[in-house]
């Protein structure tokens, strides 16, 4: 199969960035059609919404648990407010495209939530969620072309990165460990 110049450039850049992490670069695949791209973007937006919905449900449970300090409880409520606004925007974007949005998860189905018992475990749990959110948004950015939606996604991604900073500081981790914050693919 012939590789287009665009695919070659994308693969070269991915290799450069992947090299920074020591990960293997993936070979270039065939370019998706416009319809495939639309479906990939919708799938990525749905995945991002699912993570943001999980954040909302989990942070509310953690903030109401009584296990955290006053300061960390306030932090969780602040993150909750931001992520609720992200979820609202994603929901509107999906509904405008005629996509059925996912149903928010129940607390009992959120993996790791039951293990949160203090400030540090709350931070570690939330770091994993926020990294998944950034990863989901990265996939959406790859397949989106709408400039307004890209700007909204970038805004939510950046704020989730800032969530990561305060959570990493709470967990006594390096706040900005990488020059390229890609998160984790959900």
């Amino acid at each position, binding site marked *: 199969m012939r590789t287009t110049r665009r695919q070659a450039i994308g693969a070269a850049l991915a290799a450069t960035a992947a090299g920074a992490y020591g990960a293997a670069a993936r070979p270039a695949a065939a370019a998706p059609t416009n319809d495939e791209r639309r479906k990939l973007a919708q799938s990525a937006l749905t995945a991002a919404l699912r993570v943001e919905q999980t954040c909302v449900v989990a942070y509310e449970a953690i903030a109401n648990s009584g296990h955290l300090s006053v300061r960390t409880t306030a932090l969780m409520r602040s993150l909750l407010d*931001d992520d609720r606004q*992200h979820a609202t925007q994603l929901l509107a974007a999906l509904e405008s495209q005629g996509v059925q949005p996912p149903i928010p998860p129940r607390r009992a189905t959120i993996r790791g939530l039951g293990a949160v018992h203090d400030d540090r475990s709350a931070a570690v749990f939330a770091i994993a969620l926020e990294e998944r959110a950034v990863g989901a948004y*990265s996939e959406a*950015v790859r397949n989106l072309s709408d400039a307004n939606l890209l700007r*909204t996604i970038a805004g939510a*991604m*950046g704020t989730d990165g*800032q969530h990561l900073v305060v959570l990493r500081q709470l967990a006594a981790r390096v706040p900005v460990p990488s*020059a390229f914050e890609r998160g984790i693919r959900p």
Partner: protein
Amino acid sequence: MSTAAAEGDAAVLNALLDQEHSSIAAYTLIAGHLRGAALASARRFVAQERRHADVLARAVGALGGTPTPPRPTAEYAQGFPRLRSARDALSFALDVETTAVAAYSDALGKIATDGIRVTAASILVTEAEHASVVLGDLGRPQVPQPFVTGPPPQADTP
């Protein structure tokens, strides 16, 4: 990919590259006014800005363009504020980072190459993270708004 699209991406990336060169020059000045943890952060951030510049320059080359070289530091410094204290330096660092976030946000909708758009987004997030650390050093809220790029456009706004 068409030649026009490649040239368009190279132009957008070259503008971002010049932005990164300016950030590197700015942090060199900023670091001279900081101590302790804030200085350590500034050093880490300037190293990350160099990584951004390196990746952008490689991408411009891969697109068939010529990466914009850094201008003399004095040329960038002409546009910098006069720094009298650590607080001035941190405020300037915040300006540098918020300017970078805005530049990457504007660029995302103009980049045609998928992989480059993802890398640009990953840099935007890192710049937002830098801003959050600086905000903390300034004693200000570290996550000041739900969207770092400002409020999303409203569908019913004329």
